């Protein structure tokens, strides 16, 4: 047998290149291209009265300066609303260059093209824009009060009102033996990949073709958008996502203004044009996420079992809604986690503010939903004096209740039906891993030393692998190497290794023989994109199916060559052989040669397939009617529904009794993402996710002042964790294969981040003995809360039993 590589911690194929400085990110490509800088709005809300570019015209090295008026036809029109939804009654998208009005600091107004970025920025400094100020709407409460409007024609600043309902939650709550209400808040953060966005475009006037390199999570869709906007035939546009320095959601949004403007300038000027976002630009013009206010009303019995859950959410969607209301949809559905809520109602108001747009950041609304549910679980346990793990367990969906239909509609437009999972088993593992049942002794011992510690837990379920589809292409070359292509993109998830492992196993070749290309429309034209922890599920299964087709064809051709029944053949280490009878073999390289009847030979190997070397049956066409030349195959995977991964985190924190400084002593993760392709890569995804979860719980927030200025738009001020802030992670896992796809995979990309704020709030609350309802939390905020608690102000503000 070929050494099986699926499930093995195979070292990554992409690493040697990336480690030796040979990676190719967008800004590494296109040396000598013209470079772009933008004049961006310094104001959150204003009308543009006048733009005076004359001061910039004599800057040496300026090639072109464009404002909205210069953009022809569809190029200047508002960007598309990517995901329309009935509830999104007032969707608004920006113009690529602002027309008349700006709605957030950072919105692009003027585009400057110059010989290099230094010169382009010189010119930007000399362009004068005159504004008439409008009142800025900043913060969810201000947006909700709607004293001022972001968009004149959007009443109440409400972009969408989304209701998700199953049963009569209000009645169920009203009739429940106990009722609690919680007011919760989560602040903004952002994906913040280390590489910002970047676009490089090359127009070939002789060939009338355009090639665009962009740091995106959705190259095929960028291609469609660029072709439509520039009114070019789609087959004259190629879009490549080369190495991408992290995405985490922000690069799924497309087309960004720059993704239209840079290619358009390249065509218009007939020159190579490049734009590379700098860090400040990324802070003020790329997307953020998370910010929500939540009101939870929950009815439950004395056992802690939920009877009804009635949640109201106010979601800050920023200035525009190009990505629709995906985040609110995910929050309102994934809030349910592994639990049966009884009757459920969620109402979400998606509100405009004069701030950067809000679109999915790893977790994509789930951390907020998880926060609402997990804070509620802790509040119930506290109210009834029950163990927090017990309350959770009592509300779990049991394994024998799978598949479980929540009676709601998920983000893919399909019913929210959990396919599989064993939540009690996960909880059991987690409790053992962290020592849940022994913690009281630990706490007592710590207390005796004057130390203050607390333990918390949080559970989540994540819908992964959403459709509609992905495709895969697999080809065996005549030298026996295998090339694989899939359309979705890669931002560090190790697809070149994971997909190679899948194909290697399906075909029976060593993994080193397989080379994978992702996110390049020249190599695979149809794709959706990399988001929602879908790549491994979608493209993993697609390349597996394609490889199965290739294997079938290889066995058929080899059967003819070996005069054997294909059913008696196997492929081992790239050689087709008769099972159990060593001797009669044919290598896949030869099968590849034989699969392609030739007139011309170009080496010794291919001579074997030429017309006089293999005359074949003179009565039959060389390529049969239902066949194609080449040992290759393409297939698609399109699931009926998402597959649901799950996990649970627990943490132990120690808090300084004087300074309220919070240290994480232990952080434990149990996760179940179905069949593992490469455990090392999955573990890496968990680590990275947890780091972002911890960041969102203790460090990161976007600090806007009332005027809509982002006060911490740099890595000096936005507290992205360094190694010293991230705890060591102890992980264990379950493998409950998904019944929905051939490989049994569930997604893992976002898992680590989802319960971060919830688990740390739970642990801090446990350590302090008072309610934590707002994250992130800094030591000074915690200190403040302590003081308020001591003054007995705390108990009336957050929780009250209305019975």
């Amino acid at each position: 047998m070929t050494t099986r590589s699926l499930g093995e911690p195979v070292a990554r194929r992409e690493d040697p290149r990336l480690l030796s400085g040979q990676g190719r990110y967008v800004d590494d490509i296109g040396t000598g291209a013209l470079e772009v800088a933008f004049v961006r709005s310094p104001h959150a809300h204003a009308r543009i009265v006048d733009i005076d570019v004359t001061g910039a015209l004599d800057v040496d090295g300026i090639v072109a300066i464009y404002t909205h008026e210069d953009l022809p036809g569809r190029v200047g029109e508002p960007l598309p609303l990517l995901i329309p939804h009935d509830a999104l009654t007032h969707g608004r998208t920006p113009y690529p260059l602002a027309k008349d009005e700006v709605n957030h600091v950072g919105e692009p107004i003027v585009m400057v093209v110059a010989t290099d970025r230094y010169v382009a920025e010189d010119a930007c400094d000399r362009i004068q824009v005159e504004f008439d100020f409008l009142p800025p709407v900043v913060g969810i409460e201000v947006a909700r009060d709607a004293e001022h409007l972001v968009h004149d024609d959007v009443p109440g600043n409400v972009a969408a009102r989304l209701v998700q309902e199953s049963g009569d939650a209000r009645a169920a709550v009203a009739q429940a033996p106990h009722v609690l209400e919680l007011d919760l808040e989560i602040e903004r953060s952002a994906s913040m990949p280390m590489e910002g966005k970047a676009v490089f475009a090359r127009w070939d006037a002789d060939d009338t073709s355009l090639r665009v390199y962009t740091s995106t999570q959705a190259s095929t869709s960028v291609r469609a958008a660029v072709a439509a906007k520039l009114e070019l035939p789609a087959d004259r546009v190629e879009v490549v996502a080369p190495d991408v320095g992290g995405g985490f959601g922000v690069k799924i949004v497309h087309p960004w203004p720059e993704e239209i403007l840079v290619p358009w300038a390249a065509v218009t000027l007939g020159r190579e044009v490049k734009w590379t976002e700098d860090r400040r630009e990324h802070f003020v013009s790329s997307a953020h996420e998370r910010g929500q206010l939540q009101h939870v009303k929950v009815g439950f019995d004395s056992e802690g079992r939920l009877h009804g859950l009635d949640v109201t959410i106010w979601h800050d969607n920023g200035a525009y809604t190009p990505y629709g209301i995906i985040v609110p949809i995910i929050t309102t559905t994934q809030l349910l986690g592994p639990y049966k809520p009884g009757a459920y109602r969620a109402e979400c108001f998606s509100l405009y503010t004069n701030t950067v747009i809000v679109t999915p950041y790893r977790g994509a609304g789930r951390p907020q939903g998880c926060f609402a549910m997990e804070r509620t679980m802790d509040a119930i346990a506290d109210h009834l004096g029950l163990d927090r793990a017990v309350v959770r367990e009592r509300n779990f969906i049991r394994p024998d209740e799978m598949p479980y239909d929540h009676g709601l509609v998920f983000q893919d437009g399909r019913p929210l039906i959990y396919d599989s999972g064993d939540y009690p088993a996960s909880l059991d593992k987690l409790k053992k891993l962290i020592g849940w049942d022994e913690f009281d002794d630990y706490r007592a011992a710590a207390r005796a030393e004057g130390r203050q510690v607390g333990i918390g837990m949080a559970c989540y379920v994540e819908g992964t692998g959403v459709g509609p589809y992905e495709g895969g292409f697999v080809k065996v070359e005549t030298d026996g190497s295998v090339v694989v292509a899939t359309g979705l993109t890669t931002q560090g998830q190790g697809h070149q290794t994971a997909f190679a492992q899948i194909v290697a196993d399906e075909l029976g070749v060593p993994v080193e023989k397989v080379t994978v290309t992702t996110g390049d429309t020249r190599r695979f034209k149809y794709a959706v994109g990399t988001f929602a922890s879908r790549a491994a599920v979608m493209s993993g299964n697609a390349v597996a199916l394609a490889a199965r087709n290739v294997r079938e064809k290889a066995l058929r051709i080899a059967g003819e060559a070996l005069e054997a029944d294909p059913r008696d053949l196997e492929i081992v280490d790239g050689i087709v052989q008769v099972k159990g009878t060593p001797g009669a073999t044919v290598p896949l390289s030869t099968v590849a040669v034989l699969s392609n009847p030739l007139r011309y030979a170009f080496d010794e190997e291919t001579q074997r397939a030429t017309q006089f070397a293999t005359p074949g049956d003179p009565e039959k066409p060389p390529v049969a009617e239902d066949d194609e030349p080449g040992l290759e195959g393409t297939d698609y995977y399109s699931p009926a529904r998402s597959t649901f991964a799950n996990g649970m985190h627990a943490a132990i924190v120690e808090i300084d009794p004087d300074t309220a400084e919070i240290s994480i002593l232990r952080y434990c993760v149990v996760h179940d993402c179905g069949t593992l392709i490469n455990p090392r890569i999955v573990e890496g995804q968990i680590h990275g996710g947890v780091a972002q979860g911890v960041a969102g719980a203790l460090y990161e927030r976007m600090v806007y002042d009332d005027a809509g200025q982002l006060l911490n738009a740099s890595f000096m001020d936005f507290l992205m964790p360094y190694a010293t802030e991230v705890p060591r992670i102890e992980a264990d896992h379950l493998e409950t294969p998904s019944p929905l796809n051939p490989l049994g995979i569930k997604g893992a990309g976002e898992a680590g981040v989802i319960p971060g704020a919830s688990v740390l709030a739970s642990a801090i609350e446990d350590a302090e003995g008072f309610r934590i309802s707002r994250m992130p939390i800094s030591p000074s905020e915690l200190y403040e809360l302590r003081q308020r608690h001591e003054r007995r102000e705390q108990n009336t503000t957050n929780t009250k039993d209305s019975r």
Partner: protein
Amino acid sequence: MSDTSAAEPRHEVNLVVNGVPRSATVPARRLLSDFLRHDLGLTGTHTGCEHGVCGACTVLVTGAGRSDDEGVSGRPIRSCLQFAVMYDGAEITTVEGCTRPDGELGPVQQAFQDCHGLQCGFCTPGFVTTITAYLEENPSPSEEEAREAISGNLCRCTGYQNIVASVLRAAELKSEEVGG
């Protein structure tokens, strides 16, 4: 006429990068990071912030002003905070120069692959150079020291745990080499 309307005065910068003499003529304000990436075509050095916080642009330098603290491979500097003209006559090592003479991965790079110390790879060049310099100073760090050693570099992908492991693994690989 303004200061930027005339062509900027340019300066010749001669230096040795990864053992190879290189030279380019650039304006005085050209950042060393841009100089390496765009004038010399060594795009392995990345810029994640251009304000000296993330460490992605870290390169190792010997010569150029300070001679008090030169290790074997030089001291780490943030090339996004330096002008190229300040490094006329210096010797610089970038991530491309951290490979073995035959082009195979050097010990720090190999350790990153062994321990899955990178995901997107964008921050990685800065870690590789930083750790290379650190291990010259402290060839056998503890886990805690390893974590401290990388605590000036940002990574958004890995959560750092496997980078800490990579530091320890690199130390091991280097000592094996020295030892045997």
